[in-house]
């Protein structure tokens, strides 16, 4: 009599037979899963994803080294020549320098102004998205972890926040706070944290229900460790996707507010303000003052979104932002 609950190989008549059968059935092992490396690879092998990544990297480098690579310091009034104002792209200055992208109404080299503006825009976008991410993630985790009344309170707050369009919230805040880099960062953080909170809470709730968290609890691991070591890493994929999209949105919103004249002050011009400056000359045909900063802004946002869109497909978070 044979014990039928054992594996087939043990019931095979001889060890030799078992070995031969096992050999015939062997498949090459699956490559080890490396989710992050795999995700990056899949983003970069997609032509649009690669294009987006290249654009973002080039613009980041340009912004980072703007003070070295700019032909002039656009905010040093001593080097500006008002005689050079509103020169079309490719014109030469009195001193023989070429304004590749033309000049603005104060005789400022537009290429330099764009590089500096890019730096400000990227700085505001990344810093505000970073702060919003931290605040939002903590709120989301707290909400998911404690549940009950805390959860209701936080989610109610999130719902109220999200039922108002970001631009309206930003308008109110800037009306109250006034202008300045710190002020706009606060406004952007307030308009964005709720997206992160909702994403993290959603992901954390799903993960919380999984067996391994229960298992960790059964091992009597302290509750904080369970949250951080087990839940947080699994919230990362959706968080990465939302964060990418949100940085793009923050850059766009900051530019919009600055364009409206209630965002960044004139002393720290971002791309939005440069576009706004050129706006009044648009109808008279001096298109380049608005168009070129706009193109830079556009490349930045489209680049980030291309990467984000691809990341979304690759990481496939089930939580919509």
């Amino acid at each position, binding site marked *: 009599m*044979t014990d039928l609950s054992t594996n*087939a190989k043990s019931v095979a008549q001889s060890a030799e037979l078992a070995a031969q*059968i096992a050999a015939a059935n062997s498949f090459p092992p699956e490559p080890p899963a490396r989710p992050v490396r795999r995700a990056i690879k899949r983003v970069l092998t997609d032509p649009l994803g690669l294009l987006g990544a290249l654009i973002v990297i080039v613009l980041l480098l340009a912004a980072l080294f703007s003070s070295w690579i700019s032909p002039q310091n656009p905010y040093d009034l001593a080097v500006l020549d008002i005689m050079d104002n509103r020169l079309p792209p490719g014109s030469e200055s009195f001193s023989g320098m070429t304004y590749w992208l033309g000049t603005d109404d104060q005789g400022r080299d537009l290429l330099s102004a764009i590089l500096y503006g890019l730096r400000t825009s990227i700085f505001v976008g990344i810093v505000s998205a970073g702060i919003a991410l931290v605040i939002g993630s903590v709120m989301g985790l707290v909400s998911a972890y404690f549940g009950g009344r805390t959860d209701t309170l936080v989610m109610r707050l999130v719902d109220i926040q999200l039922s108002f369009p970001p631009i309206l919230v930003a308008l109110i805040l800037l009306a109250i706070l006034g202008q300045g880099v710190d002020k706009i960062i606060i406004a952007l953080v307030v308009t964005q944290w709720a997206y992160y909170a909702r994403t993290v809470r959603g992901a954390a709730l799903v993960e919380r229900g999984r067996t391994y968290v229960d298992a960790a609890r059964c091992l009597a691991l302290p509750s904080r460790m369970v949250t951080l070591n087990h839940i947080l890493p699994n919230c990362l994929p959706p968080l990465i996707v939302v964060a990418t999209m949100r940085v793009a949105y923050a850059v766009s919103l900051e530019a919009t507010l600055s364009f409206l004249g209630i965002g960044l002050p004139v002393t720290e011009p971002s791309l939005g303000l440069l576009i706004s400056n050129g706006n009044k000359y648009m109808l008279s045909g001096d298109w380049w003052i608005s168009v070129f900063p706009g193109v830079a802004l556009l490349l930045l946002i489209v680049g980030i979104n291309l990467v984000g869109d691809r990341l979304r497909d690759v990481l496939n978070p089930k939580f919509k932002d």
Partner: protein
Amino acid sequence: MTSRSDYTLELRGLETVFDGEKGAVAAVRNVNLAIKPGEIVGLVGESGSGKSVTGLSIMGLIDRPGRISKGEILLNGEDLRKVSAKRLRSLRGDRMAMIFQDPMMTLNPVLRIDTQMIEAITAHDPKIEKSAARARCRDALGMVGIPDPDERLYAYPHQFSGGMRQRVAIAIAMLNNPDLIIADEPTTALDVTIQAQIIAEMQKLCKERGTALIWITHDLTVVAELTQRVYVMYAGSVVEEGLLDDVLDHPRHPYTQGLIRSIPSDNAPGARLFQIPGMTPPIDRMPKGCRFHPRCPYVQLDCLEDVELVPQEGERSVRCVHPIRQGEQVS
């Protein structure tokens, strides 16, 4: 050819593949199946055995990236792989119908029952009077045991219980009096008592109307109650076929034997329930030769060679190098 009208449905060498990153993999290979008018056959197997794909292939409902790559599907002698899309649509729901597993998902949640029933009639008979179509729907609902059919026609699916929804689905399948119904685990999601009622009703209706019924299931007890013949599928192929009693009493394929042995019975209270060791292989990692050999208690070295479905005495076929002979069973 005399065989033309003998069978309601005949599958000859059906192969359905799914195109993936590493090329096409077959979910169903070389399946032959035949069913006569009024006959009820069971298509049995674990999940992943290809039984549902077989059902969908017959209906022409395989979506990309899947496709039927080989074989003939003869409905009343007409090869469905050769007919136009228009002709196939006109046959679907009219000459052949299908019932799906989850009654919660098969009815459109935002459309009323009458909309969903009447369209099954008007799709094949656009000129029918609305009142005549409605009357037919009402009769169909009454026939499957839904109380107040007149009123219930105006209800939405969420106002029905699971069992009632499945009855609605059955009523829809029967509306045009098809020659063939394919039922894909229609009772798996239901309570056992409801399951028994629905099985009894289906049996009665098919007998009355001479409808051929293919009942797809993983549950041999359902097959035992309902069918006259069974096809046992494993890893995309039929491994054994025959008359119900022959197969259940004297399984010749070790897999069939395993399935029968894993039915809980009251013969040996307290005994450990049998289970077939291992799992169905994924379709892209099929073992060589007999696909069951890694899980087979009688495996031999020659099981690594390919094996065909071999006809036996009686209405019987087995795909096994070492079929079990009567009396030679491990117990």
